């Protein structure tokens, strides 16, 4: 998995009816865009280290060019 700062991290719900969760990647700590990431979660504003597993996907956003 590779990601950039500004991408969204989406976690699929683990149970039937459970909503997906999302956060914004604010730092990439691994080489070449690899995990771990620092993610700011939803409305809480809390930031955690995050290690994506089989339940997570990265939603890439187009990054503006100079």
């Amino acid at each position: 998995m590779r990601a950039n700062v500004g991408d969204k991290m989406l976690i699929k719900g683990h149970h039937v009816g459970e909503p997906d969760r999302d956060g914004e990647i604010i730092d990439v700590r691994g080489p070449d865009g690899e995990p771990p990431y620092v993610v700011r979660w939803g409305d809480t504003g809390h930031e955690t280290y995050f290690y994506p597993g089989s339940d997570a996907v990265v939603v890439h956003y187009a990054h503006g060019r100079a």
Partner: protein
Amino acid sequence: MQVIERLRRSGVGLNGAATVKAAAEVMEAVGVGAIVVLDGAAPVGIVTDRDLVRRGLAKSLPDDARLDAVMTTPVITIEVDADIHDAFDLIGRHGIRRLVVVDGDRFVGVVSHDDLLVELTADLRQLGRAVAMELHRPSHDPGLPAPL
């Protein structure tokens, strides 16, 4: 059988100085039942939602109590390329519901008792199909060859 890498769930890590309230809010926001306490990239403890209730709320710990005040340590870990049977053994031996997955000394995720059960159920279902086929459509062996 499968290696743990295929089964591991996303892992959320926080520093031990984070508050128990922040941990609870993160668990709700991310939809996880456990947070791994990190020292750098290395896991040093684990806090589950149950820990927050029993060691935090039930003991009237303040909201800003440190996360490492309620964590379980040392943490039981499994290598990311370990076999699923190793996970069965660790969970059974220690009587726990989650294993912290590591790559060397680096935290990379979590695998739970429920994840392993679901995986095992899928394997058992395949075996069950063979038994069901035999029950519903029993095979008939051809007769013995006629004596010469």
